[in-house]
């Protein structure tokens, strides 16, 4: 059933793009939750917690997302867990994104200036209060530009969900190509759609970074 690219194909690609956005949001929310936990564990007062969270980060950052995808999608069913493509992709991205966001946010927490920690301690706040009321609000400001920047990585990485058969944008392109066999044209369109999703985020992150740099220099005490 060879034919030429028509409105239905574009609609199908559009649907795929929506799933790319949806999967990105799942990864951001799931990975954000895991990452938040990881970041807190990495600066914990308990050594064992620090070591365990650091090991998690090292392992995940040393493993390709593709392998994590295969591990959850193909590896779990033989062990008796059945996993849908969406669940496999969502879980893999959550695990993966969690490690990277965890590191970004740990860096942000630790770059809150030392005197702030000491001032909070001097006020006799508990560790939780110090974190919640003094450190985290400042860390959020520091962490925003790199987090927005990492969202670009998330969107691009959702394309790997195609390998477990989840129909997002890249998979939608493959499916259309299987019937039309116009690979260059179709992947070029797919690339343009990804670009349209990612480029605004990239620009936003750059802008935030510049604004942040300005803000920090003016806030710098003499």
């Amino acid at each position: 059933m060879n034919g030429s690219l028509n409105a239905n194909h574009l609609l199908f690609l559009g649907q795929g793009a929506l799933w790319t956005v949806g999967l990105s949001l799942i990864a951001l929310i799931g990975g954000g939750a895991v990452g938040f936990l990881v970041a807190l564990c990495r600066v914990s007062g308990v050594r064992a917690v620090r070591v365990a969270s650091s090991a998690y980060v090292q392992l995940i950052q040393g493993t390709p997302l593709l392998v994590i995808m295969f591990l959850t999608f193909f590896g779990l069913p033989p062990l008796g867990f059945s996993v849908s493509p969406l669940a496999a992709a969502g879980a893999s991205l959550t695990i993966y994104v969690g490690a990277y966001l965890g590191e970004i946010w740990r860096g942000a927490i630790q770059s809150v200036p030392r005197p702030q920690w000491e001032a909070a301690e001097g006020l006799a706040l508990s560790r939780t209060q110090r974190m919640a009321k003094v450190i985290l609000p400042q860390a959020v400001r520091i962490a925003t530009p790199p987090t927005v920047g990492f969202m670009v990585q998330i969107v691009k990485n959702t394309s790997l969900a195609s390998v477990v058969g989840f129909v997002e944008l890249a998979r939608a392109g493959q499916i259309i190509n299987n019937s039309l066999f116009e690979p260059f044209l179709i992947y070029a369109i797919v690339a343009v759609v990804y670009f349209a999703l990612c480029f605004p985020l990239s620009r936003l992150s750059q802008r935030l970074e510049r604004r942040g740099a300005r803000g920090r220099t003016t806030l710098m005490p003499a």
Partner: protein
Amino acid sequence: MALTLDFSAVLERWPSFLDGALLTLELAGIATVVGGALGGVAAIGRRSRHAALRRLCEVYVEAIRNTPLLVQIFLVYFGLASLGFKFSAVTVAALALTINVGAYTTEIVRAGLDAIPRGQIEAAEGLALSRAQIYRHVVLLPAIERVYPALTSQFVLLMLASSVTSQISAEELTAVANYIQSDTYRAFETYIVVALVYVALSFLMRAGFWTLGLVLFPRRRRLGTPL
């Protein structure tokens, strides 16, 4: 029966894993060297006096950084084919990875170049060095030194990302794992093993870059300043 793990059938296939790991390192090595050089050139291009060249380098960087590697690989693969070139999957993989990492390297090196104080360049100009000589002797090495940790991370990420080239049947580590799991019906064990091999390769690469840093930056070695 469900939760018994058996690694023996998988571990028996270690020569295949080794072959795959070697190809992964080869792909990463080629892309690191060629892509790194490409990135260095494009970073200089982004600071060129010629607006058209600056723009060209910017378009390259933004196009690559805002699209997935998987799609880039398909575009190179099918693009070359439609132009009538017949290359092996490994060649296409190396090419796509090189183009990809070149764009990221461009931005990292550019940040390093921008951080070189203006006075360094003026001092070199005052000594009658040419623009090319200034880049070569005065600017490039300190710029790379500044961003060396970021470059290291980027090249390790590239090595991991080379797993995506399994999708065009380059027989690297992940592709090998796919065969082995379909042969042994031990998917979980296979991918656990292969994940650990990747972790080991990451560690190896970081150690390699650390050692290379000692060679590249003798001042660090002499004065004991950490990177």
